[in-house]
C-alpha cells in the first residue's frame, strides 16, 4: 500500500500547488450575488422567483450574477461571508426569512457591503429589507375560490401547505379572510346565509408531491371545489390531484380547480389552474441591484404589497411574458406555449364571472385601504383568526 499513499500524496501536493492562487477579479459593470434558501433553485417558490429576477438583471442590466445554494441553514453565514469578503458584488441578496440572523451578523461585519433581504427585516443602514404582503394576494385568490364554489353550489374549499412556519400562516389566514369576505359578499348579494368551509393541511414537506396529492384527494373527497397550493414542490401533487379528479369525470377543464402560488403557475396544469397568487420576488431582487447600480440604494424596508405590485393575482399577460421568456430560452416549444396558454385561458373562463368580479372588487378595496386583510405570523394569532373567520 505504501506506493499508493505515495502516489496519493503526490496528487495532493500537485493539487495544492496548482490551485493556491486567488481568483482574478470579476469583470463587467456591476455584480449581483444571490444566496438561496435551503430549498434552492427549483423549489417552485421564492427561490425560483429570485432566480428569475437575477436572470432579468443579467439580461437587462448586464450584471454578473453569482448564485450560491445552501445545503442547510447553517451554510447561510459562511456563504454570505465568503461573498462579502470577496468585495466583488454590488449587492448581495439573501432569500427567505431564515437567512435573517446570518444577514444581520454579516451586515455588521461588512458595513460597506450592500445587502438585500427577501421576506425578512434587518435593522441596518446597509440592508434593504424587502417584504411582501402575501396575505393580501392570498385574500384575492380566496375570494375567487369561495365565489367559484358558491356559484357551483358547493360549500368547501381547501388549502394545502408545506411545513408550518410563520410565513405560511400569513398565506393561510389571508386566504381564509378572502373566503370570508366573498361569502359575506355573496350572501349580501343573494340574500342568503351560506357558509364555506376551509379545509387546511400542513403536509410537513415542501418537496413531496405525493403528500400534496394525498392531502388534496382527501379534501376533494370532502367536497372541496378549489384547493390552494402553498407548498413549493408539494404543490405539484395538488395540481395533479385536481386534474385527475376532473378528468375522471370526463372534464378537460375544472372544476375542481387548483390555485398556484409564488410564480404564475397556471401553465403547469393547463385548464385547472385559473389563477395563481404571484409574489414578485423577482422584482425585489431586480430593484435591489438596480438601486445599487444607480446609487440610490438605501437601507430600510421596502414593503411590496398589493398596491406596490409586490403580490398580485396572475394575469394572462403575466403568463404571456413568462412563456415568451421560456420559449426564447429554448425551454418551451412554441406550439406547447400556445396549448398551455389556451388551457390557462379555458380555466379562467370556466370560473364564473362573478368570481372574477369578487376578486377585482376585493383588489380595489385592499388597494384603497378600505379592507385590511388580517395578518398572522404566529400560531395564536392564526388560531384566533381561524376562529373569527369561520363564524
Amino acid at each position, binding site marked *: 500500500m505504501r506506493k499508493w499513499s505515495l502516489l496519493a500524496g503526490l496528487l495532493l501536493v500537485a493539487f495544492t500547488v496548482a490551485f493556491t492562487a486567488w481568483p482574478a477579479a470579476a469583470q463587467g459593470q456591476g455584480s449581483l450575488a444571490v444566496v438561496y434558501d435551503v430549498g434552492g433553485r427549483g423549489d417552485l417558490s421564492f427561490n425560483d422567483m429570485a432566480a428569475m429576477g437575477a436572470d432579468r438583471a443579467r439580461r437587462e442590466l448586464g450584471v454578473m450574477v453569482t448564485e450560491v445554494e445552501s445545503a442547510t441553514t447553517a451554510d447561510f453565514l459562511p456563504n454570505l461571508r465568503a461573498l462579502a469578503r470577496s468585495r466583488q458584488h454590488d449587492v448581495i441578496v439573501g432569500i427567505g426569512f431564515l437567512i435573517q440572523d446570518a444577514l444581520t451578523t454579516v451586515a455588521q461585519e461588512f458595513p460597506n457591503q450592500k445587502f438585500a433581504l427577501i421576506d425578512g427585516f434587518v435593522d441596518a443602514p446597509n440592508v434593504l429589507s424587502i417584504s411582501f404582503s402575501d396575505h393580501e394576494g392570498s385574500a384575492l385568490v380566496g375570494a375567487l375560490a369561495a365565489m367559484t364554489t358558491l356559484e357551483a353550489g358547493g360549500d368547501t374549499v381547501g388549502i394545502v401547505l408545506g411545513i408550518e412556519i410563520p410565513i405560511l400562516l400569513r398565506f393561510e389566514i389571508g386566504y381564509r379572510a378572502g373566503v370570508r369576505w366573498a361569502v359575506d359578499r355573496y350572501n349580501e348579494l343573494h340574500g342568503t346565509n351560506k357558509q364555506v368551509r376551509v379545509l387546511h*393541511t400542513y403536509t410537513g414537506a415542501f418537496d413531496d408531491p405525493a403528500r400534496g*396529492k394525498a392531502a388534496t384527494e382527501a379534501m376533494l373527497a370532502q367536497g372541496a371545489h378549489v384547493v390552494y397550493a402553498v407548498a413549493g*414542490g408539494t404543490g405539484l401533487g395538488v395540481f395533479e390531484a385536481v386534474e385527475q379528479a376532473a378528468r375522471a369525470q370526463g372534464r378537460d377543464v375544472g372544476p375542481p380547480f387548483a390555485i398556484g402560488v409564488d410564480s404564475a403557475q397556471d401553465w403547469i396544469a393547463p385548464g385547472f389552474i385559473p389563477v395563481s397568487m404571484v409574489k414578485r420576488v423577482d422584482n425585489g431582487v431586480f430593484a435591489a441591484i438596480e438601486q445599487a447600480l444607480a446609487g440610490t440604494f438605501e437601507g430600510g424596508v421596502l414593503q411590496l404589497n398589493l398596491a406596490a405590485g409586490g403580490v398580485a393575482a396572475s394575469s394572462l399577460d403575466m403568463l404571456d411574458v413568462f412563456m415568451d421568456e421560456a420559449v426564447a430560452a429554448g425551454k418551451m416549444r412554441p406550439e406547447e406555449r400556445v396549448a398551455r396558454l389556451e388551457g390557462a385561458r379555458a380555466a379562467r373562463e370556466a370560473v364564473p364571472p362573478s368570481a372574477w368580479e369578487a376578486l377585482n372588487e376585493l383588489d380595489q378595496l385592499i388597494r384603497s385601504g378600505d379592507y385590511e386583510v388580517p395578518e398572522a405570523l404566529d400560531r395564536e394569532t392564526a388560531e384566533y383568526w381561524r376562529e373569527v373567520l369561520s363564524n
Partner: protein
Amino acid sequence: MLFSSLLLGALHAMVPLTMTATGEILSERAGVVNIGLEGILLLSAFGAVVGAEAGGPLAGLVVGLGVGAILGLIHGVIAVYFRGDQIISGVGINILALGLVAIGIVWQWGVAGFHQVDRALRIPHLVTPLGSMSPMVIVTVLLAALTYYLIHHTNLGLQIQAVGENPAAADAAGVRVERVRLFGAVYAGALAGLAGAYLSIDWLATITRNLPAGRGFIALATVVFSRLNPFLAVVGGLIFGFFDGLGLLASTSREITQVVPYQFIQMLPYVVTLLVVTGVIGRARFPAASGQPYRRE
C-alpha cells in the same frame, strides 16, 4: 366517497413501496442488500420521463426499468464480483442520484427543480367502481405473485435461496453463485426502476429533484416488514399507504387537529407500521449469507 378515495389513494401509494420491496426481497434472498433503492427510484423516475418524451408511456416504463436495472447491475457487480461493501455502494448510489437528477433536469429541460409530464405521456388509467385506477396497481400485485412463484416454485428460485443461505453449498452443487446473485441485484434494480417510472409518469406526473421523498427507505422497511414474503410486502405497502392517507385526511379536520395536533396525526403510518411489526411480525429471519460477499478461498 371518502373511503373509496382513501382506499384508492392507499392502493396508489402502495405501488412504489411494494414494487420496490418485492424486487429487494428477491435480491436479499440471493444475499445482496441494496440500500440505494431511494436513489434508483429517483434516477429511474427521471429516466422514465426522458424515455416517455422520446417514445411514449411504454418507452418511459422501459427506460425506467432499464435505468433501474443498470444501477442494480452496477451495485451487483460491486457487491458480487468486486466483493465490495454493499452498504457503501448503496449509500453512494443514493447521493449520486440526488446530484445527477438535479443536474439532469436542468440539462434536459433547462429548468431547475421540476418538469411536468405531459398528459399524453402518462400511463392510461383503468376505470373501476372505486374510480380511476392505475394499471400499475395490478402489475404490482402480479409482480409480487410472480416473484413469490419465482422464489418458491422454480429452479431459479431454489438457486436464489441457496446462494443466499449457503453460497459455498450452492457453488459445490454447480450453481453459478455470482450470476444468480447478480440476477438478484439486477432484478431488484429493475423493479425499483419500474416503481420510479410509476412515480414520474403515472402517479405524480412530474419529476422533481427529490421525487421519492424517502419512499426508498420506507420500501426498505417494507422488506423487513414482509419477512421476505412478497405477499406480506403488499400488505405492508397497503397498511403504510392507508394510514398515510388517513393521517392527511384527519389532519384536514379542524375538529380533530384542535384535539390532537396534526403533527401527531401524521405520525400515524410510522407508528402503526412499528406497532404491527412489534406485535404481529416480530423476529424476521434473514438468509444466513445476506449482505456478505462470497469468496471461494
